[in-house]
């Protein structure tokens, strides 16, 4: 068995049966081994960046490790954005890149790049294999490491000669993670019980730890009002009575108000990202903080925790739920207050009664949320549409919402949706994108067609880079700079060129029929939705500003949430 065959063997042993890749010179021995392989489906994307983002989407939707493969040089460098995206959102990923033969490394050989050096800051760990006999150990370690603790991408750079060398070293045995001990929650429980206005603040760590069920039980039994980060959307499930929705720059006024007024912030699986907290000086000024996370380096990173618990979220949440079952919290007044704020300061979109009116972004997303099945996966891109989805789509599970949170990668949505569709060929997967983001990986329409994926694509087309235009309007004296996209191609014709049928809608009365038409079609289909160029995402906090100083749609002036929500 040569190095290439050994890599496939490791895939088999770890039940990795789908990989996303693109062949080329130095990775050819692995592609040669794939010819005879049964059990690993190789998905050929049309750009290596899309391979990495599809592997990311596969991992997010399934909870399993995503795998991407590329050749040396430009193949490897094209992976970088997708790997950085996975790193920022802690997605378990294995990256295999070919490298020039060992004797040629350092000679500026054809398609040689120092990919190990280039990627040090965006991987959990990385290897340059210099001995074929080390490959069994490296493969085993890499696959385990990518998925353990706080997950992340692990990169293995394999010179071509190593792929061709016989591997005689024995297969490494799977390493089991040591069983974690649940930390003592007594002090945290006492803090929780003494709080009069405790607030649950959860993020992407909940689903990364596969702790969704325990989280919901805890959220329900504690009765704590709850806010979520962009990656935590769906944690509480659909219809959780105390969920105030997303906080932060485009969060609801109710969520930011609750953070402002709470006296205890109970943070679970979140890293207090600047887009969520706003200016830290004004963030939760009256609150003590309990921070629960798997990663010790996140504790006290941006704000000192009054108490930190590190460990397995499932165990910790279960311990709290058990304790609260014996003596529930008494926070009725606080619950009522938050509910009032939610009623007056939650995300709201006027359902336009005028059927011939142009389509409003939030109203479209609300209709989409009502029409598609609860278990549909929505893969967003980055921009205004992403925030409208976060604000107005009601998710039942965090794995149904694929969004590029940390890196904010335009072009993420389409390949991520492809990955999600491979994770479950029978699920409804919808890529909600903008005209700017769509064009960043539009070549993947060919991948959809090749594999006949029943993906649905929705382009919310405002003929510009809407989020940039909005910030130029609000914070740069309306001096528009290079945001105009009114020379976009005809997206309907473009989809049809890839043999993907497409529809165009532009009026409110066409929304329902448009969505129903693409859902009913047995195959991939694109819905082109023309929306106003001038529409903004509300509310908004100026980058670097305090969440208290949200700018509201009606007034477009800075005002405190106290005034707005009261």
């Amino acid at each position: 068995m040569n190095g290439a065959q050994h890599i496939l063997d490791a895939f088999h042993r770890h039940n990795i049966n789908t990989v996303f890749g693109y062949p080329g010179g130095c990775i050819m021995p692995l592609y040669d081994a794939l010819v005879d392989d049964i059990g690993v489906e190789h998905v050929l994307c049309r750009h290596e960046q899309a391979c990495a983002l599809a592997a990311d989407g596969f991992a997010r939707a399934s909870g399993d490790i995503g795998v991407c493969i590329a050749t040396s040089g430009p193949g490897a460098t094209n992976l970088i954005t997708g790997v950085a995206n996975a790193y920022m959102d802690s997605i378990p990923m294995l990256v295999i890149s070919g490298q020039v033969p060992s004797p040629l490394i350092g000679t500026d050989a054809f398609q040689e790049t120092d990919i190990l050096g280039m990627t040090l800051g965006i991987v959990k760990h990385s290897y340059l294999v210099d001995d074929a006999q080390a490959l069994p150990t490296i493969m085993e370690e890499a696959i385990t490491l990518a998925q353990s603790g706080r997950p992340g991408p692990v990169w293995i750079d394999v010179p071509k000669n190593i792929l061709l060398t016989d591997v005689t070293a024995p297969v490494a045995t799977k390493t089991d993670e040591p069983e974690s001990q649940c930390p003592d929650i007594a002090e945290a429980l006492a803090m929780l019980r003494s709080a009069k206005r405790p607030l649950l603040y959860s993020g992407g760590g909940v689903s990364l730890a596969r702790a969704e069920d325990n989280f919901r039980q805890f959220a329900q039994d504690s009765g704590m009002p709850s806010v979520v980060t962009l990656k935590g959307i769906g944690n509480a499930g659909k219809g959780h009575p105390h969920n105030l929705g997303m906080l932060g720059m485009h969060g609801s006024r109710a969520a930011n108000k609750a953070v402002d007024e709470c006296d205890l912030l109970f943070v679970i699986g979140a890293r207090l990202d600047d887009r969520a907290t706003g200016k830290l000086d004004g963030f939760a000024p009256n609150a003590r903080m309990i921070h629960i996370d798997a990663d010790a380096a996140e504790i006290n990173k941006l704000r000192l925790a009054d108490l930190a618990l590190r460990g397995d979220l499932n165990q910790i949440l279960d311990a709290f739920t058990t304790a609260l079952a014996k003596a529930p919290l008494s926070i009725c007044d606080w619950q009522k207050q938050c509910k009032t704020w939610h009623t007056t300061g939650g995300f709201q979109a006027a359902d336009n009664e005028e059927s011939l009116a142009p389509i409003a972004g939030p109203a479209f997303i609300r209709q989409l949320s009502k029409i598609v099945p609860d278990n549909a996966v929505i893969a967003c891109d980055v921009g205004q549409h992403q925030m409208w989805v976060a604000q107005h789509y009601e998710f039942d599970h965090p794995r149904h919402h694929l969004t590029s949170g940390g890196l904010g990668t335009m072009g993420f949505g389409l390949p991520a949706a492809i990955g999600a569709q491979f994770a479950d060929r029978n699920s409804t997967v919808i890529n909600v994108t903008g005209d700017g983001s769509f064009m960043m990986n539009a070549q993947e329409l060919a991948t959809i067609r090749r594999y006949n994926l029943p993906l649905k694509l929705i382009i919310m087309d405002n003929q510009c880079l809407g989020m940039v235009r909005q910030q130029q309007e609000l914070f740069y004296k309306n001096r528009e700079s290079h945001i105009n996209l009114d020379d976009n191609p005809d997206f309907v014709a473009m989809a049809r060129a890839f043999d993907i049928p497409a529809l165009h809608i532009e009026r409110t009365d066409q929304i329902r029929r448009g969505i129903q038409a693409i859902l009913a079609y047995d195959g991939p289909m694109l819905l082109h939705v023309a929306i106003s160029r001038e529409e903004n995402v509300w509310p908004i906090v100026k980058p670097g500003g305090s969440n208290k100083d949200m700018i509201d749609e009606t007034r477009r002036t800075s005002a405190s949430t106290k005034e707005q929500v009261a």
Partner: protein
Amino acid sequence: MSPQAECSTPSYNLNCRMQSEAAALERLCQVVRVRGFRISQMSMNSGNEHLEIALTLEGSRPITMLKAQLEKLHTVTEVVVQAQVGVRSASA
């Protein structure tokens, strides 16, 4: 940076033990730089499997945060930090 500003920047001795691998030093230095510290002195001893690296660092961010980030590196086995005598620590 003015001499006065240099004097006020906290300084630390950091000793790190990590597994010997091709990119070990780069990995360590990358984290030090990106987390806001400057290396003013550096020495290294290499054994069979481990590297013993001693750094003198300057930086105004909490050193405990850098320590936590370095400890996350898969090949790092131990990090010991000491504030240099006579210099006020940002995190202590």
